[in-house]
């Protein structure tokens, strides 16, 4: 490995990026655009989550509350249960995402002006779905309680307050915030995928296509120098984009960031390396830019978008698809991101996410170095 030749390849690659409007847009604007797009535009809806209810009150009031759950799009009352064990069992077996217990003194305490505590049990196996379910449940409960408040004040002839209205608005806002908190961290996976796999998939293919590879491989530069020299600039760009996207998410969208920067960058570096190697590998085997970009789209971007758990909870996918997701690097990175952002999981607890990524990286190093030869076909 000769550092000067490595630097020569990397410098040349940077010039290519600088002089290509398409690459520049992807490198500079795309991360911001994606964060904004998903930060503002997407309100993630988990629809019709199965709910078990245990109504210990059994009054008109408790029925009203349950009706609200039923009529919200987010929930579907799967069963009216009669005991705690039944609820626990339903949650454990995955038959219910959420269980709601209405206390026996629900209507009395409501009548006295509260406060009333509604107990909710969630299936915590999928943290995101659980959090969302709780968020939605809170929304439903708040909507209900603000309606009650209006009634309560009217019955007593008190002047109408605008609290209900503001509660209504806050519910909306909360819902939206909950969604973006789950989605925006995952946007990093998209950004890394585009920069890592998509852009790099073009680099080697472009050299074959334009005929520059033939002259390049007639020089003393080694295959490894070509590979690393080409990937290095994208690695740096990717890491900068991680920083920028995270800053945008945290400071603009107020997405909670409970983990450490170091953990975020470490996990991102690992995923980025996987994507870079994959992009390089695709580029080597495809030999044309069009084929390379299409393969990259199908193999990396679409799965990262649809199957990584970024937008759609993996647990809600058909079982077969769930197995498929296990070979998707993006799945592990999205999971790591959510853990880092929302739970502040320390790095040593992220092995379930990071270990598979390390394995992918190793396998791809072998594949990529083996596939790329300083030879014409």
């Amino acid at each position, binding site marked *: 490995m000769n550092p*000067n030749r490595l630097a*020569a390849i990397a410098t040349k690659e940077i*010039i290519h990026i600088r002089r290509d409007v398409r690459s520049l847009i992807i490198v500079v604007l795309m991360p911001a655009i994606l964060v904004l797009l998903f930060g503002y535009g997407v309100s993630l809806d988990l629809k019709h989550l199965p709910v078990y209810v245990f109504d210990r009150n059994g009054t008109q009031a408790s029925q009203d509350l349950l009706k609200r759950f039923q009529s919200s799009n987010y929930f579907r009352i799967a069963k009216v249960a009669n005991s705690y064990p039944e609820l626990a069992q339903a949650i454990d077996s995955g038959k219910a995402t959420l269980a709601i217990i209405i206390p026996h003194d629900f209507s009395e305490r409501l009548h006295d002006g509260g406060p009333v505590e509604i107990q909710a049990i969630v299936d915590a196996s999928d943290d995101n779905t659980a959090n969302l379910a709780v968020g939605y449940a809170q929304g439903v409960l708040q909507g209900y309680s603000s309606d009650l408040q209006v009634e309560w004040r009217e019955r007593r002839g008190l002047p109408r307050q605008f609290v209900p209205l503001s509660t209504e608005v806050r519910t909306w806002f909360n819902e939206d915030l909950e969604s973006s908190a789950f989605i925006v961290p995952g946007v990093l996976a998209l950004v890394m995928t585009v920069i890592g796999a998509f852009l790099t998939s073009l680099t080697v293919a472009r050299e074959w296509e334009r*005929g520059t590879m033939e*002259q390049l491989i*007639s020089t003393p530069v080694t295959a490894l120098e070509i590979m690393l020299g080409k990937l290095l600039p994208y690695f740096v760009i990717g890491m900068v984009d991680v920083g920028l996207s995270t800053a945008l998410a945290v400071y603009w969208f107020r997405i909670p960031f409970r983990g450490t920067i170091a953990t975020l960058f470490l996990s991102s570096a690992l995923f980025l390396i996987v994507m870079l190697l994959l992009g390089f590998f695709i580029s080597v085997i495809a030999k044309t830019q069009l084929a390379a970009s299409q393969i990259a789209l199908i193999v990396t971007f679409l799965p990262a978008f649809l199957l990584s758990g970024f937008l759609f909870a993996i647990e809600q996918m058909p079982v077969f698809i769930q197995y498929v997701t296990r070979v998707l690097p993006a799945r592990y990175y999205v999971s790591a991101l959510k853990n880092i952002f929302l739970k502040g999981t320390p790095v040593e607890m992220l092995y379930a996410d990071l270990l598979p990524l390390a394995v992918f990286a190793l396998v791809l190093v072998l594949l990529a170095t083996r596939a790329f030869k300083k030879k014409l076909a």
Partner: protein
Amino acid sequence: MTAAVQPALTIRGLTKSFPGIRAVDGVSCDVYPGEIFGLVGPDGAGKTTTLRMLAGVMPPDQGSATVAGSDVVHDPEAAKHDLSYMPQRFGLYEDLTVDENIRFYGDLFGVRANERRARSAQLLEAAGMSEFRKRLAGKLSGGMKQKLGLVCALIHHPKVILLDEPTTGVDPVSRRDFWRILYNLIAEGVAILTSTAYLDEAERCHRVALMHEGKLLFLDTPAKLKSGFAKGVLAILSSDARRMKEELKRVEGISSLVLTGDGVHVVIEDPVRRIPQIKAQLVSAQVPFSEMRQVVPTIEDLFVDAVTSGRSGGQG
């Protein structure tokens, strides 16, 4: 070429097949330091494949080759410091400037910055490109591109240079610059192997070989090839050379016909004796012609004759 001088390039029995075709078939030759060796041949003759194997970018099926003392078959990387290869297709980066391309290749060969600046200034001057250093390579004319390719190829003082049809599609002025630079390298003791589509360029080489269907048919200096040619050549000037060529195909005993700018070269045995017969034929067919005389054969006459009589025994 004295016996004491070691060849810079030795090729022995080099062979390469692709599905359905033996592209290079047992090619052997040597190229010496300070020599320009021309490889001439029709499309698909195997020139590019030969050069690729010598450049270490394509492994041969059989045979051996050494470049500057290194075995390129068993260790293709070993010779790469002493070698430069200019592919048939423009191999530089169109979105890099002239200087950036030169710098890139300089860096890959470990040329130090001050050395590179001096060398590239001198080469660009010789190429008449000094004022284009900041221009993107993609914005250069075809001739300029090829000259830039040569400058990049020479930046590290290679011992062996492999050029694949470097002047195809290049304007005459650039071609002249190009050849001047090549001649300057002879003094540096560089061995140059170039394929060419222009037979007038073949005459400028120290030695030439005709490649046809993967084999080398002739190999010698242009002068010896011409003097050793058993047949003779008649040059006939005509305002309608194409029609004349068609008409001459009827004449028996003509080995081959080569169109020139202003007429036809007739390759034929014992040419002077055949003049009356050919004249009569042209007159009776009412083909206009002005002059008919025996001339020294050109390399093109030789090669066209070798290729066409090898192919069909008749005219091309």
